[in-house]
């Protein structure tokens, strides 16, 4: 479940000179996928691609095999794929000797763990601090990810890094006030344990995950 946007046109046009087969994955269409932009881009270069395949959930290996089966696509010289990074990798894995080109950039959006794209993000830091911070995450709500209080750079409640962003620590402070517990005592100063992100700790988890994916 990822957000993508179209690569700049000057990067895409040289790819079209190879007459690629175009694959558009609209699987996450109800989320954010630049469907209109892609179609209007392609309509500006109508004769420069050899075919267009529309599909969904290209990231699913089983489906990917069907969409890009020999009967459907024969053997194109190159393939241009508009999809998220996972979809492109799945297709590349399946096509192997046929070069694939990525038409989209996938954007960094933390926190699509559940189903909803919500305002909230989760950095999956491995040591949840939300019960100390009134349910507002300092790692994602603060541009600097500070754990020990505001940096002091906020102006009128807005972050100095990006003025569109509210100061996470000011929000936390207000929430504390509402709940009647302003308790930033020195003992609660936390040091982030980055080891919880290390491959040693997550590796076992991830390999479990990978093993759960059905083999061919």
């Amino acid at each position, binding site marked *: *479940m*990822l*957000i993508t946007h179209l*690569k700049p046109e000057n990067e895409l046009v040289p*790819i079209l000179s190879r007459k690629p087969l175009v694959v558009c994955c609209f699987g996450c269409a*109800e989320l*954010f996928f630049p469907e209109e932009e892609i179609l209007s881009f392609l309509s500006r270069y109508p004769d420069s691609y050899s075919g267009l395949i529309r599909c969904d*959930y290209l*990231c*699913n290996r*089983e*489906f990917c095999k*069907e969409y890009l089966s020999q009967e459907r696509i024969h053997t194109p010289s190159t393939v241009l794929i508009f999809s998220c*990074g*996972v*979809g*492109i*990798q*799945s297709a590349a*894995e399946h*096509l192997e*000797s046929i070069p*694939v080109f990525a038409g989209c*950039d*996938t*954007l*960094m*959006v*933390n926190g699509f*763990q*559940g*189903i*909803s794209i*919500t*305002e*909230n993000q*989760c950095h*999956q*830091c*491995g040591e*949840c601090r*939300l019960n100390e911070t009134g*349910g507002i995450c300092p790692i994602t709500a603060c*541009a600097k990810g500070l754990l020990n209080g505001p940096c002091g750079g906020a102006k009128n409640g807005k972050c100095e890094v*990006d003025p*569109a*962003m509210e100061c996470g620590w000011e929000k936390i402070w207000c929430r504390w006030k509402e*709940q009647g517990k302003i308790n930033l005592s020195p003992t609660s100063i936390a040091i982030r344990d980055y080891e*919880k*992100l290390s*491959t040693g*700790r*997550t590796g076992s*988890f*991830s*390999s479990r*995950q990978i093993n*759960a*994916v*059905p083999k061919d």
Partner: protein
Amino acid sequence: MADVIVKDLTKFRLKQKEELVETLSHISSISLLWCEKCFTAEELSDKDIAAFKEISDLSHLSISQDIRIPFLCNRIKTSSLLQETLSPETKRIAVASCGIGIQTISSLFPDLPIIALTDSIPQSLNATSLTAFHGITLAKLMCAGCGNCVLTKTAGICPVTACAKSLLHGPCGGAKNGMCEVSPERECAWEKIFSRLEKQKKKWEDSSTLHNFAAFSFSQHLVYRKENALRHEKPFYGGVHPPDEKKSTESSPLRHFSPPEKVILFLSQHAGMPAKPLVQRGDSVCIGEKIADADGLISLPLHTGISGTVRDISTEWHPILLQPMPAIIIENNGKNLFSDNYTRFPNWKDTDPDILLDHIRETGIAGLGGAMFPTNVKLSVKKARILIINGCECEPFLTGDTRLMIERSSELMEGCAIAAYLLGVKETVVAMEENSQEAFLSCSTAAQNFSEIRIEQFPTAYPQGAEKMLVQAVTDEKVPKGKIPPDIGIVILNAGTVIALRNAIIEGKPLIERTLTVSGPFFREKGNFIVTIGTPLNHIFHETKTDPSDIGKEWILKMGGPMMGTIVPHTRTAVIKGTTGLISQPFPAVKASETRDCIRCGRCVDVCPMKLLPLDYVAHAKREEWKACKEKDLLSCIECGCCNYICASKIDILSHIKKAKHHAYYASETRE
């Protein structure tokens, strides 16, 4: 997928025991909220529950409420669920969920202290991005969402996630025998990249671009979030936006087919009891003659649309019930004789409503939107407040009602006035989607003479035309669970039905024809047609110059719209009162299957306009737990097919739901 389904793709786990005991020991009572996790089995693991029980015993904690909610992060669903269940005396909420779920709860209840019981588990294996996510399906491939995709250069292997050091400019040189020096279990991504490049006869070109960490700004992020929030709440929760495919027919005016050589009139083409035939083999009939009579209160008579001889009363294959059903077959004698005993009510304003209602029943008018409910029954609702005319043709391909609203808007308004008179309502709303401006203009002009009728447009989304969604969009009221719109004083009529109603009252015409959209890539002639009810499909194929012999081999024929229509495997059937369209579609590359496994991505929950849990019905139906389906309010399902459309695993959710509905409600009723 085999049954290797993912038991442990947990996104969070309980915090360390010592930490929790310390936090909880100062607290006397809490309300406990568990998220029934995504990407894992549908039940919470007993291990977690047992572990927490031990902790709560140790810290002498009393748990005032124990609530379990699937997909806690879905703010809208969670908030409506908690409004019903969470006790108002709650002082503290302890949440076991991923960080997003916890933050959702804390933003819903900003005044209540929140206790996080769990840590989220990081899911990345690379240094650049702390988080990396799978696509919507389970794959070992990962994407860090870095915002500057380099897969083009690296033969489709992502160096950001696959390389432990996330190097973008080539290998570090530390790999041994193809294995990474950071963790000997993982393969060196760059070695893989080079070997694949070699296969593709390409060379690695290091263009020395630097990684742009600012590829996605916070302001952009805000825009996306707002868009998403709008999509979720307006005009109704959930719904999907399938490609509308209306371009090829939306500007084609309504046309008549040449009269068919025979008609097949099914006795059952309305909700309720089938009609009783009034004719026998060999009888001759004229256009508009009643050939079958209503049998019971909710039933309708049937009229013929051609003049000729009754050839037979036998069984034919019914396009909705998908089995042979009794039908009257009439052969055309080509004389086009009209039955002349039509009763007309040009002065309907001075006529008793009961007489008009009887006449509407006699003319056999049923809901033409597809449900085929007798219109006279709908119009006898007492205490109606609002009449809504449904012009939301939300199904892809279909354009028949839109054309009617464009070409016959004055008839439509007259029909609205008649229906409003019969119901005694003061307020009439003609609702349509934003995609048909022409219809909006035409109706607005026609409505100028009628002060009580207003035209409203709603955003295009499927299923905007479903009754309950429409009521919510028009009146902002919600139809309570287990109730239908007439229960709250709202009557909904399809636009085509209103025009048929007008023709029945003013011209005395019985329901013998309807509009039909013929569309889809395999029809050689597409368009909107006025078709005699009972026209055999073969005749339509002949008129549209299309060869029907490839149905079921090369393409699929659907009667109705592509979302809710039924698949017709052959042409040995006919148009009925509820046939809105004939659509030809190619076979999907991957067929929906009943046996694939659910990965609990939750997209179906996200799009279900009734806020149900389609994925749970699938799980229960597979295990034949009909009672559990009942508990989860399966009857509210309107079978719109949004879950089927969106399913990431292409599970045929709808067929599971239909099966479960049958077992949970209808089968048990007959037994008892």
